[in-house]
């Protein structure tokens, strides 16, 4: 496939693997966090970890929108969907996330709630238009990539005067999450998560640009390389990070120049600024309450804010005690460190959110990489 296969070329991958191995100095470790679930997925799906030298270690970050959504927010969505006559529109990924009382949106749907899986925020607006007699709520989640389409949906609904449409906004911000990880005690004090650099988001950065990461490079002395989601992008970014670490540099470099600029997409940013404003605080799964890390709908578009319209009250719900999603999202633990990984918690019956989305660290490892754990077990058994 043109423009895709070029970025998945096995020959180039082997050359990059050789280059990374040559650059990585024996005797030191390179702990690199890929922030984005898209990168986590690519690393697992293409078997990239197997192409890296043993001292280059990838840590899966919290950049999977479904994974960081706290249980309380899913509970809110299910409560909304259970209102008589209401249609809740959602991206399919959220359907299987476990909520309180053994529920999930999938189970709520089976119990009779009218929950529709959609591919685009525009579908939610269309459904509202087709059902003028019913309330239609769009359950909006995601990082900066999915925020502009939600803004478009709200603006379109406003222009069309769609009074039956509203948005339950759960959009979150990437830089705030990176800051929270760098400020976490594991990274700053305990040193349990040695972090030498970040593979920066691809799609998020097409919107916000590379500029917001400069703060982390300067303030925390952590190199950031923004990378595309294709496997060669990821390997190239890893090579660039290894070189920065070797040189003692901490810069923002852009591997994904075919789509990302320093300033990002001005139009998208303006649209988001018109419709949304910062929340004072927002709970993330794994990171807890993070100040100024999420968006809410501005006063001007209050009529489209489902939280206002339905008086949604947020209640924080603790994770299942056995679930290590929190520690995994902070990079403190790996999926295989979790006691319930692959036993009680599987993609079919997820306990934690990391096992739900294909971008989640646990689901990616379970689906693509767990044969390596088995090999380790087999080798130690011998």
């Amino acid at each position, binding site marked *: *496939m043109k423009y*895709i296969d070029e970025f*998945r*070329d*096995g020959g180039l*991958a*082997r050359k990059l*693997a050789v280059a990374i191995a040559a650059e990585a100095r024996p005797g030191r470790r390179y702990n690199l966090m890929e922030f984005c679930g898209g990168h986590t997925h690519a690393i*697992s*799906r*293409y*078997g*990239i*970890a*197997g*192409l890296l030298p043993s001292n280059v270690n990838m840590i899966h970050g919290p950049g999977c929108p479904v994974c960081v959504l706290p249980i309380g927010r899913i509970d809110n969505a299910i409560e909304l969907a259970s209102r008589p006559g209401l249609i809740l529109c959602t991206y399919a990924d959220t*359907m*299987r996330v476990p909520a309180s009382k053994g529920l999930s949106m999938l189970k709520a749907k089976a119990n009779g709630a009218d929950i529709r899986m*959609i*591919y*685009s925020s525009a*579908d939610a607006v269309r459904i509202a238009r087709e059902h003028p007699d019913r309330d239609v709520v769009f359950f909006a989640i995601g990082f900066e990539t999915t925020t502009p389409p939600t803004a478009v949906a709200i603006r379109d609904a406003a222009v069309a005067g769609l009074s039956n449409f509203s948005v339950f906004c759960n959009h979150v911000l990437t830089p705030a999450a990176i800051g929270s990880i760098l400020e976490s005690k594991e990274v700053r004090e305990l040193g349990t998560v040695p972090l030498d650099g970040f593979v920066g988001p691809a799609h998020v950065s097409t919107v916000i640009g590379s500029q917001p990461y400069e703060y982390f490079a300067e303030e925390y002395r952590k190199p950031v390389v923004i990378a595309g989601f294709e*496997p060669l992008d990821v390997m190239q970014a890893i090579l660039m990070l290894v070189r920065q670490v070797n040189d003692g540099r901490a810069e923002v470099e852009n591997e994904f120049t075919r789509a990302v600029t320093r300033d990002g997409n001005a139009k998208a940013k303006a649209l988001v600024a018109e419709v949304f404003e910062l929340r004072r605080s927002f709970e993330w799964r794994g990171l807890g309450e993070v100040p100024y890390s999420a968006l809410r709908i501005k006063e001007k578009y209050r009529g489209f804010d489902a939280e206002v319209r339905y008086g949604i009250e947020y209640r924080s719900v603790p994770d299942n005690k056995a679930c290590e999603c929190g520690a995994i999202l902070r990079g403190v633990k790996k999926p295989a460190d979790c006691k319930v990984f692959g036993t009680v918690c599987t*993609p*079919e019956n997820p306990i934690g959110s990391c096992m739900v989305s294909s971008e989640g660290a646990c*689901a990616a490892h*379970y*689906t*693509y*990489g*767990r*044969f390596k754990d*088995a090999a380790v077990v087999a080798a130690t058994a011998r």
Partner: protein
Amino acid sequence: MSNVRPDYVRPVDFRHGRVDMTHGSGGRAMAQLVDELFLAAFDNEWLRQGNDQARFAPPPGRMVIATDSHVVSPLFFPGGDIGCLSVHGTINDVAMSGATPLYLAASFILEEGFPLADLKRIVDSMAAASRDAGVPVVTGDTKVVERGKGDGVFITTTGVGVVADGIDISGDRARPGDAILVSGTMGDHGVAIMSLRENLEFETTIASDTAALHGLVAAMVAAVPDIHCLRDPTRGGLATTLNELARQSGCGMVIRERDIPVEPQVNAACEFLGLDPLYVANEGKLVAICAAADATRLLAAMRAHPHGKDATIMGEVIADPHHFVQMNTSFGGRRIVDWLTGEQLPRIC
């Protein structure tokens, strides 16, 4: 004086008519629909007898029976419709034992209000598929449910066939060292269906691969009587079929991504929909497992048949207590090809 003939019955209106509750009531309307639609289309000696069952003499060999329900949405799609799909699906299930399919039974659940014109199109397509395959529909049933309690039409078909003694094709016979073959491109049916789905409509020239594979199977069995496993990778695609076979046989598998044929258009559609072609359904392809020594001969037999012209040898069976299906990626890494989680696309067959 009336000039209406005394025995005149107004024919079923296949242009503007719709299914109503009387078509399933057992009364005259149902009898008329059976005569003018089903009997006319499937016409054969068994149906003409007008019994509730068909009788035939058991042929030598072992009998094989399989059944399959079809609920695909939309009912008509590029390359086929629910009618021919319901014939091919069951013929293939019978054929994957190495058997010759002989007879089909068909059961229709119709929704009140369903256009008779669409029903006729579907039944005609079934009849054509059954004639082409040489497997007659010898008995059937029709029920009607109230509007809102079905989705147009659901079709269940059951097939019987016969397999010669000495042929032992079964999902539990894969052994370490065996070769894994696939008969052609993966994912065509699923992508053809997807291209018509509400919210997803995209333009593609990909058509469903729906086809009856008993001819291909007969050619394969003639070339290599000791085929170990055969299965058609329908729902859940190739990945699911390989995992089923690995579990049934208690072994693992290693497959090569570069040897699995996928149409560029299917790859492209999967790319932008976030799907993996290995999990997308096929309706006219099969996976075969045989001893490594037989693989080249089997491949040649497959490639000589129109339904197997793109066949490849794409992997091998290994010993693995975890029953993992691993894949060497074209990129150079190795990963698991796991069971499908959840559903990639509902109601594709």
